[in-house]
């Protein structure tokens, strides 16, 4: 009774017979999944950009001018021993002045400087930038004064906190949008496939009438649903491939360059694109076959 050849040939014959419905279903899958996939990629890259902005957050610890060499070394060792610390860069008074001169070249302010008013400092980059508050607190004693040898600690507390709350909100919104898009895609695909089965309810009726078993009725439709979903998702993957290679990456490179962001996630994220592609292919086939199955329940009862 199992006749794979019949089911395969029947699938393709009926795709040819019902070309318009099949075409509609495939196009729907392709367009909706393309939107979901492309948006996911964009969100992923924006997250990458946000991460690299976050990792630019640094803590500057200014030292007293009269700090002893031992204390300075001790503080540096101490900072290096913290697990949050990514790297520590010591900037001496001379280096600070040099840097200041370079940044303000040609400005009148340079003429007014006598001697070297700039303090030496440690610039601390953190592995986990969101812990910056906790790290900064270590330079204070119980009473809220700076510990010995420290003149000031600067890290733009407000700015950093705002940055983190904004990035958290962006992340949540992006996730919600992806979920909504995905849901819309699923509903749209399901309805299209349901319509294509509705258009052929007469065929199902006749099949049942002449004594086809339920599975014999179902299997060609399930094949078709799978084929439509899978083909649609392949088309959307091809579209995404071209869009991401020829537009997205270029656009992001420009954004990265203008924002002075060191790393651009998409360039180093071949794996992620690949997973998105695989995910979409599986999703397409699955939605197709499941939609057919659900839509058939109505017509294939007894």
């Amino acid at each position: 009774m199992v006749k794979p050849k019949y089911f395969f040939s029947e699938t393709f014959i009926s795709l040819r017979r019902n070309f318009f419905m099949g075409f509609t279903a495939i196009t729907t899958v392709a367009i909706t999944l393309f939107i979901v996939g492309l948006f996911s990629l964009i969100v992923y890259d924006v997250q990458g950009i946000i991460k690299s902005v976050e990792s630019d957050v640094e803590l500057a610890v200014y030292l007293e001018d009269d700090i002893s060499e031992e204390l300075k070394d001790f503080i540096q060792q101490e900072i290096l021993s913290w697990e949050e610390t990514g790297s520590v860069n010591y900037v001496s008074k001379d280096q600070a002045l040099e840097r200041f001169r370079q940044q303000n070249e040609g400005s009148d302010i340079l003429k007014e400087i006598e001697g070297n008013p700039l303090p030496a400092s440690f610039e601390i980059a953190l592995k986990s930038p969101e812990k910056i508050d906790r790290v900064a607190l270590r330079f204070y004693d119980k009473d809220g004064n700076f510990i010995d040898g420290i003149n000031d600690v600067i890290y733009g507390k407000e700015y950093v906190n705002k940055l983190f709350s904004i990035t958290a909100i962006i992340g949540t919104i992006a996730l919600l949008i992806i979920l909504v898009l995905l849901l819309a895609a699923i509903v749209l695909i399901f309805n299209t496939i349901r319509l294509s089965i509705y258009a052929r309810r007469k065929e199902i009726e006749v099949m049942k009438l002449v004594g086809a078993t339920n599975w014999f009725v179902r299997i060609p439709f399930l094949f078709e649903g799978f084929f439509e979903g899978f083909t649609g998702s392949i088309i959307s993957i091809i579209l995404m491939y071209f869009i991401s290679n020829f537009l997205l990456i270029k656009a992001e490179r420009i954004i990265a360059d203008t924002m002075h962001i060191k790393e651009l996630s998409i360039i180093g994220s071949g794996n992620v694109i690949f997973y998105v592609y695989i995910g979409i292919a599986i999703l397409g086939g699955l939605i197709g076959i499941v939609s057919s199955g659900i839509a058939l329940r109505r017509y294939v009862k007894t």
Partner: protein
Amino acid sequence: MNMIEFKNVSKIYEDNTVALKNINLVMKKGEFLFLVGPSGSGKSTFIKLIIKEINESSGSIFIAGRNICNLKPGRIPQLRRNVGCVFQDFKLLPNRTIFENVAFALEVIGKPGYEIKIQVPQVLKLVGLHNKLNSYPHQLSGGEQQRVSIARAFVNRPPILLADEPTGNLDPTTSEGIMKILSRINLIGTTVLMATHDRNIVNSMRRRVVELEEGEIIRDQKRGVYGD
């Protein structure tokens, strides 16, 4: 041998309309029976019960000696392969040729291709359409379409053929042609049950007539006529 047997069968639909009331009827193998009565008298319900499109509310139905009341859903297709069905609206698939329409009935019950190639032209010859294998339903007249639908119902050689108002949409001359085919099929030994309210046909055929009125059998006559 009893091909169709109704024992105290009643059918009450969910909206409480009583379609059939305590029906008792026996049809022997090779019999030809007209089920007559006005619209709404229960003729279609009668036919739907036999192919288990609906279930009886009480009583028992035997097909070829087998009680079908407790038939498992998985066994229903087997029942339908043994009961051909013809309807007033033909139920042909518009995007398939005549050959494909008839072949479809064999394909979906898993018949191999070589058998289909032999049986389909044979049955189309029986209904006189062997020269229109590649036409589409819309290219045929109503009578021809009904003959295709009969061919489809009979291609699997079921022992029972049910026809629900098969001439309902056809003119008298064309109807006569349909009746000739049904008689021929009956002569081969097929049990034929035809629901109709076509007075002329019933009167000219002089076969067994069962009359339904409001769900009850009010007359069962050998070689009967339509009635007043």
